[in-house]
């Protein structure tokens, strides 16, 4: 099944939260597509709206506290038009989600088996026995050594890595087309992180699912993703294949991020530091390039007034024009940090 048909189309989505009676955009004008059989990574600093995007797709926001506009086209259905019951047909069945904190994401008072089979109760017509078998099967699939025992245990009796595997099992129980993994490995050790990522990749190839992998760890992205979208302050600033992003990053933000990573080759140097802070929601400017304040040496005229995405090579898009002549101050040697 080698289709690359995009089954998820996110078009111009805005999500705004109500804070003290006013709505503020947490993500704005997001356009994204996800294909079968690929891992799309979304990277960005804390607070840039990665989780918001994920939960917007899942429809997990309280409608009285949020305002969402745009269109999320999932296999021909606009998810944003669905009511609660309609959404429930997709959640768990067609879209699975994996959360960051594996301990709190599981109901502490229910056995693992019940938590996994619950999702099947609502989306399949399996008998109790079949469900039981499927649970064991799933646990095995996510790499749990002793599925029988684990199925009978409670979350607190499992290690972090095991819990995360259970959550993955829940997410894939109904063979969804789309899996959203929101920082699935942040709370885990590197060795376990690697294992979990392996599991994710295996599942993706077996189920031909599309995976949205949210993370702020560039290493994880580089190792796992097929395509990458870089977010900054609620917007996507650059999008492209892993190679494009890591080998020929364009946007100043992407480049800054990569430069600030401790790497083999900058062992004894100072790391690059992005000036300033990510603005808080309320202080986010509506117009202009949101990253501009953090690269003050770039002249205003190099930025677009209303930055848009520019496709610079097939599949590689960058927001704003400032990337064109961008260079770091120490490389220019003229601008003082």
């Amino acid at each position, binding site marked *: 099944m080698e289709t690359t048909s995009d089954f998820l189309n996110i078009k111009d989505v805005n999500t705004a939260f109500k804070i003290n009676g006013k709505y503020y955009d947490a993500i704005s004008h997001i356009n994204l597509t996800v294909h079968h059989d690929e891992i799309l990574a979304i990277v960005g*600093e*804390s607070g840039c709206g990665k989780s918001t995007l994920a939960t917007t797709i899942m429809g997990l926001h309280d409608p009285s506290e949020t305002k969402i506009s745009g269109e999320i086209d999932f296999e021909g259905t606009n998810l944003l038009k669905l009511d609660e019951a309609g959404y429930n047909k997709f959640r768990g069945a067609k879209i699975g989600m994996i959360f960051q904190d594996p301990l709190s994401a599981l109901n502490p008072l229910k056995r693992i088996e019940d938590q996994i089979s619950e999702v099947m109760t609502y989306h399949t017509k399996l008998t109790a026995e079949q469900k039981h078998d499927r649970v064991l099967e799933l646990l095995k699939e996510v790499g749990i050594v002793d599925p029988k025992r684990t199925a009978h245990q409670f979350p607190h009796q499992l290690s*972090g890595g095991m819990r995360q595997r259970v959550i993955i099992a829940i997410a894939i129980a109904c063979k969804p087309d789309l899996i959203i993994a929101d920082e699935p490995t942040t709370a885990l*050790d*590197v*060795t*376990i*992180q*690697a294992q979990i990522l*392996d599991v994710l990749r295996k599942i993706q190839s077996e189920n031909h699912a599309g995976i949205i992998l949210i993370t*702020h*760890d*560039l*290493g*994880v992205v*580089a*190792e*796992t993703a097929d395509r990458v979208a870089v977010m900054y302050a609620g917007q996507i600033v650059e999008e492209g294949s*892993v*190679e494009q992003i*890591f*080998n020929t990053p364009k946007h100043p933000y992407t480049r*800054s*991020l*990569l430069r*600030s*990573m*401790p*790497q*083999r080759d*900058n*062992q004894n140097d*100072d*790391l*690059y*530091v*992005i000036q300033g*802070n990510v603005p808080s929601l309320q202080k986010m400017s509506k117009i202009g390039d949101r990253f501009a304040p953090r690269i003050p040496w770039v002249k205003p005229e190099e930025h677009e007034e209303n930055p848009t995405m520019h496709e610079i090579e097939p599949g590689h898009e960058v927001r704003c024009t400032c990337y064109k002549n961008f260079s770091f101050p120490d490389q220019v040697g003229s601008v003082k940090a």
Partner: protein
Amino acid sequence: MSLVEIKNLKVHYPIRSGFWNRITDSVKAVDGISFNIEAGETYGLVGESGSGKSTTGKSVVGLEKITSGSIMYQGKDITKKINRKELDYNHDVQMIFQDSLSSLNPRKRIEDIIAEPLRNFEHLSKDEEKLRVLQLLDIVGLDPDALYKYPHQFSGGQRQRIGVARAVATNPKLIIADEPVSALDLSVQAQVLNFMKKIQREFGISYLFISHDLGVVRHMCNNIAIMNRGRLVEIGTRDDIYNHPVHIYTKRLLAAIPETSVNNRQQHRANRLAVEEVYREQQDKYYDKDGKAFPLVPISPTHSVALPKEVANKIIKQEGEVKA
């Protein structure tokens, strides 16, 4: 003489149970580790979660009650409270914590937070103290108007720098940094790491740098110890550890670090799986019957590995051959 010499340090937490609530067992959080921290260097302590890194760090600053072993500083064992007092140990050894928010008292203004050690160790006049705090803020790159603000009004990186300012306030010789950047975003992490290096250069401070991020450790540390289940499995220089790992655990840890080089990611992955495979197969060889790591055996002047004697000797021989 090293700045701090840790010898056979053990920290066991008792588990009480049974009818009389007696100690029936213990969590061996730290189970006999030894290493030395030299003046002016950054010593890295790496290991997975729960391996006892923090416990070691806390023992060194004196926050933890030690089961056995010694920590020598200026020729005195500072695991004894009297010696700590006598040496003004806490004046010389400070700590930076992982969670910057929780390590700063949310009800205190920055001025009071930074001045706290000053008030305890140096008896300055009000103006002197204020000046000192302002200077410290300046050094860590914060504006003076931070003086009367509360911790929650700062970003993570700024807060971590406040933590550093407090730690350097008494001009310490050693700072224990327990995962100082794990909670921070990349860009902020860079800021703090740079800054810690700068301070070290300027004040000649030593760090015991605790982290599970091998990338960061490689960036920061000259000497590194790998910890596993309360014991050290390998210590050596940066080069020893990253380029010539010997212990299977170290190898596995290194292999699991995600690489940013997209182009050879397949290769990296294959390598990791291979190491993983070896680890599964050979695990028993590297641990004794109880699953404990063996005592460290030097295989070069800077490099020691927890191996059974014979194996170590073999390796030493091999190395010798390679060199020859």
